């Protein structure tokens, strides 16, 4: 009853990139696949039976932690959420490390870029007049930022974004979709008091985090395993607001006055 019939098992062909900073290449493997398995299961089988030192990051194997990011046939994906059944049985699967980041070993890359960018986004500013337990917010007001807080930091969007994917030189000026979305999340937080401290998150998105580089091709949204509408709900509104701030003197004046009277 619980054992899968033999017909559901088959041998698959894999090409897995192996190497380190000094270089490497694709290695061929033939490996067993069983019903219901995901690509990470196959990588684990390779470790257990053919390549014990094959390096791969993973944690939860349930699509919640965002550790096992890699590229399958050139497409950025989570290894644990990619079912083998979406591929033809005679198709050769090519698994490579994330292209936008320097390789450490095999499928593991140095994702330090993302942690640097995270530090450059000023943190949530708690309102001075509210103590713990006194926060009141409506569900519809927190909902927008909550969508962005679904992010599991798999960095697939950072990997696929054409601004940095093949343009190392843009990395200094560009925070990437994940961290522009973080700016949007804080900007839309109903109680964030950044403005009171003189921090205008909208204009920093443009001026300090490179929002202008984004030309809304939506590649980030397409690869997001959490199906967050990064472009439509975070980046475009941020662009619109940043534009308002920048070019519309009335908006600018209105904001000045409102802030003073509050």
């Amino acid at each position, binding site marked *: 009853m619980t054992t899968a019939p033999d017909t559901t098992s088959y041998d698959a062909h894999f090409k897995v990139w192996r190497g380190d900073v000094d270089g490497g290449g694709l290695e061929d493997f033939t490996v067993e696949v069983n019903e*219901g398995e995901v690509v990470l299961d196959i990588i684990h089988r390779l*470790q257990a039976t053919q390549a*014990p030192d094959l390096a791969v990051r993973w944690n939860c194997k349930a699509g919640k932690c965002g550790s096992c990011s890699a590229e399958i046939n050139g497409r950025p994906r989570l290894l644990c959420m990619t079912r083998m059944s979406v591929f033809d049985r005679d198709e050769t699967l090519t698994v490579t490390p994330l292209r936008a980041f320097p390789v450490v070993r095999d499928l593991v890359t140095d994702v330090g870029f993302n942690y640097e960018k995270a530090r450059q986004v000023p943190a949530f500013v708690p309102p001075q007049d509210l103590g713990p337990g006194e*926060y009141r917010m409506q569900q519809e007001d927190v909902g927008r930022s909550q969508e962005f807080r679904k992010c599991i930091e798999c960095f697939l969007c950072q990997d696929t974004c054409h601004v940095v994917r093949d343009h190392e030189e843009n990395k200094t000026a560009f925070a990437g979709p994940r961290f522009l979305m973080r700016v949007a999340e804080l900007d839309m937080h109903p109680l964030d008091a950044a403005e009171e401290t003189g921090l205008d998150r909208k204009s920093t998105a443009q001026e300090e985090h490179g929002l202008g580089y984004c030309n809304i091709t939506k590649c980030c949204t397409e690869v997001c395993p959490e199906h967050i509408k990064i472009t439509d709900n975070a980046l475009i509104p941020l662009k619109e607001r940043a534009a308002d701030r920048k070019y519309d003197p009335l908006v600018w004046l209105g904001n000045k006055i409102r802030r003073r009277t509050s």
Partner: protein
Amino acid sequence: MAHVERQQWDVVIVGAGGAGLRAAIEAREQGLRTAVICKSLFGKAHTVMAEGGIAASMGNVNEGDNWQVHFRDTMRGGKFLNQWRMAELHAREAPDRVWELETWGALFDRTPDGRISQRNFGGHEYPRLAHVGDRTGLELIRTLQQKVVSLQQEDFQESGDYEARIKVFQECTVTQVLKEDDRVSGVFCYERESGRFFVLESPAVVLATGGIGKSFKVTSNSWEYTGDGHALALLAGASLINMEFVQFHPTGMVWPPSVKGILVTESVRGDGGVLRNSEGKRFMFDYVPDVFKEKYAESEQEADGWYEDPDSNRRPPELLPRDEVARAINAEVKAGRGSPHGGVFLDVSTRMPAETIKRRLPSMHHQFRELADVDITAEPMEVGPTCHYVMGGVDVDSDTAAARGVPGLFAAGEVAGGMHGSNRLGGNSLSDLLVFGRRAGLHAAEYARGHADERPRVGDAQIDAAAAEALRPFGVGSAPEEERAREPEAAENPYTVHQDLQRSMNELVGIIRREEEMSEALERLAELRERARRAKVEGHRQFNPGWHLALDLRNMLLVSECVARAALNRTESRGGHTRDDHPEMDREWRRANLVCTLAATAPEPPGAGSEAAAEAGTETGAGRAGRIALRRREMPPIRKDLLELFEKEELIKYLTDEELTSE
């Protein structure tokens, strides 16, 4: 001697999940230089997998809630074996810990009047769990992570260095807690990326390493859960208590095989989901134990009425504590009334509209659609028990989280024992992490400050020994004489040893236990220990998972032996410990903690038992002596004002006559 880099820190936190990060924030806010060391990337810890919520009696949804009610529920859930002082502190402090998260930017789901929403959960009398859909753990870890970053930003403003006072050593593993003159002096670590060794010297070390689930085949736990902190504590001379109590979450996925064990959140039942067997029957009504009879509905009608009107109806039996539900599912499957893939049915599709399901249980909807081709808005899920949590852990002082017997060592979160007694209630884990993470950070900081002028210096010999142990899987360590004699024996594949360990624990020390099987488990563990010693790895030290696993095996084998030995010794059934051969709960056992320590290193002759045997009086002397000694210890009596929170009729079910009349 190889050159090993040393750094000096005031407090070292091992683990960057909820407890570790909360401890780190506290130690840093006390002004101490704090290092956090974690096996994964920063922000990926197992806490992200927590789904349902954080239990805290804020009373936002039902004003009847308060810390006393939460305390009562926690004690009942743990079948009164909890360290009552921990349960008290936890219930009192949890609301403050949740509210504090909001000031750090957390965005919980809201009530209509704008406060933090709270949901129902098993064993909790009122809606109590602060939550964000079914991804509460992610919100918790991200909030703490971002708080750490904000502290780093402050330090950067001040000193130009983000890592001046709080640094995360990510993808690094601790293999030894170091000691000088019986006091903690630091930790020995390797960096996964390079395989390089380093030492963090520190007078105070907080263990926050989580649990042990990777010793079992079917588990909801990630690869990190190899019992590192439990083993590090044992090896440093600390004790573990309550190791026989392992929580099997009632609802894990059962199909397809590759996802077997992945968690299905209890929120499914908290929000109205029901369990049915293959005959379509809501079987939980048949499994309400006597101690809970008055509190649970007897008919479907009453149970369904409770969601809308909890004052005039009793709660549905699907919301019994986890140990009860897991045993019931196990019994139904065994009786031939299981689902096609060996579980039972968990259904929300007939209980609420599709849109509500997608809003309230988004990750479950996503998980089943992506991994099992099941649309939970249209059909039931198949679920069965999965190893989820260990109640046992480091024997700590309730107030300070200090490990007993090892000055400078602290433990918080899942790696600490006592708080949850014999069974943890859902939602009490995240609050535990925050309450005791903070306390561990605070008291570790105080301890470190008190020892600022007499920092222990780590000796070279210790470092050399730790390095040799870590290098052994490459075949270059210094093996003792008797092992060298065995060297011609075949090298073992660490992956195979691990799989054999998982199968043994799952089959022999699993959800239902018997004496013969546990004795056999101890035999097998002894064999596995031999095999693990011969584990050999290929390749070099850079990011080599085979090597990492070979080192983790030591820890898994130690904690597995603790579980098996304690489970064999406790001849009753209680919470997360169910004996087929001793099915009743025994009031005499209520006050007993089984305490595990490392046995004397000299191998004892077979059958000699240990110090444990004599004291416990019931040791079966199962085969070869292991590495663990076991003794029985009485718990302190529950404080009078806390006992008075319960009705006498209820206490009679748990406490001995002597305890009841001793006041």
